[in-house]
């Protein structure tokens, strides 16, 4: 009987604590900066074009083969009178979010820091009626970075923080 009384005391003491649950759809907790939802392409604001050159490195490294990359000659390149130093630029890009396993490898292999994991709630709330709607095209992948809705975190691999402690 003593044990049961003790158990009841625990539940009672919890009753007086502040609730830890959150009213989810109405309230979104702040996500940590490193949060990994799904990969997004980044927008180069200085030259006003995507960072991505369509080099296929991420496509080849993706373990589940959910990316498709097509490149084209950059119409904005210096040789054409533009102001970009990118000779090639991304033409079409698809990522199938339904297949992506959020492993971060595409971000790690990109030499141009052109891709980052989405760390906003938009990356998590992706309910759709049809799986095909989860195949994101270039425009959808770029829009968040283009309008400045994302503060991306691109990890520096293997670098330790010496200032830690």
């Amino acid at each position, binding site marked *: *009987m*003593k*044990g*049961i009384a*003790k*158990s009841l*005391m*625990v*539940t009672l003491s*919890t009753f007086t604590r502040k609730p*830890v649950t959150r009213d989810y759809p109405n309230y979104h907790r702040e996500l*940590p900066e*490193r*949060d*990994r939802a799904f990969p997004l392409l980044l927008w180069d604001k200085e030259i006003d074009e995507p960072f991505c050159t369509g080099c296929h490195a991420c496509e080849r*490294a993706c*373990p589940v083969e959910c990316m498709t990359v097509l490149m084209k000659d950059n119409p904005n390149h210096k040789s054409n009178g533009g102001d970009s130093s990118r000779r090639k630029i991304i033409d079409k890009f698809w990522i199938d979010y339904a297949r992506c*396993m*959020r*492993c*971060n*490898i595409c971000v*790690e292999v990109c030499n141009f820091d052109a891709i980052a*994991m989405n*760390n906003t709630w938009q990356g998590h709330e992706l309910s759709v009626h049809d799986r095909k709607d989860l195949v994101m095209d270039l425009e959808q992948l770029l829009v968040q970075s283009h309008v400045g809705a994302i503060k991306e*975190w691109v*990890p*520096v*691999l*293997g*670098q*330790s*923080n*010496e*200032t*830690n*402690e």
Partner: protein
Amino acid sequence: MVASPQATPEHEFETQDLLINVGPQHPSTHGVFRMVLTIDGEVVKDVVPYIGYLHRGAEKLCETMDFRQGIGFMDRTEYLAAHNAELSYVMAVEALAGLEVPERAQWIRTILCELNRLSSHFMFLGAFGIDVGVFGTPFIYAWREREAIIDLFEEISGDRMMYAYFRPGGLAWDVPLNFKERVREVLKSTRQGIRDFDELLTQNEIFRARTEGIGYISAEDAIDWGMSGPSIRASGVPLDVRRDEPYLKYAELDFDVIVGENGDVFDRYYCRMLEMHESVKIIEQCLERLQPGLIVPDKMPRMLRAAPGEVYIRTEAPRGEYGIYMVSKGGNRPYRLKVRSACLSNLQALRQMSVDQYIADAIIVLGSIDIVLSEVDR
């Protein structure tokens, strides 16, 4: 069995055994697991488990992937303790590629593995509470505590369950600047959580009546079935890879191997409960000794290549010995990969534990092994 149509004078009633199918879609089977129970009245006469519903061929898939790509699949073989699963895999790669892991990376790995053990055991306590019939209370409490740990993992690696954070050679990136304070904060709530559970369940007479003396397995049988982890320690076998074959920094740490006496369901529960105190102890020691430093070796090769050969690496995951057998013929991917999963071996003893128990206890016995079906089927 066919019942005899003529009732003989000595046997007024002929009874028939009844087959009951549990699962594969059943909330108490902790995943997609099916068992067929043969019952006589209320007593279980036989259990036939069927596994394989969650088979994804992760081992075979990894043979087509390079070492970095394989880590993600290892996470998914053991989703409740992904850090521990990754650890065996990257340690196997390190052994084949001859990489030396720097101190700091080893300490951080030890901390994360122990935190993962805590979160996994909380999950067990909650789910086990439901199996026993205390719906709600312990489960929700367990999730509250587990949530704090998972939030911490998210701040470190970016993901809540599939971390992909350990890499051959060390860690993917360094922990955040406030790592130590955050771990201490989490430990504080965890300690309180363990105490709550202790008072809520361990001394509760109803809980004890429900769990004591059922699902017994002797030490000899447990060894014969190849059990490991808390499930075998509850039967009185002091088998712990962390102690017997220290990896990471466990040789320098001071902790006890918790051993039970009776080998029943209650002991398997209580061993895990006490083990959580040990994990907290380990993490505190690690935090004290964690120094700034490198997280990957100085001379990390750009392309990771393994030397031809084979290794078997075993580590102590929350559910027991998680082993990776890797054969390499050189190159950047394993030639053959085999996962030795603790759950599969522990599950073998299910029949022995549940025969001659009441049917209501069969689920408790299953829950007490703490199975994760993705690890059983891979």
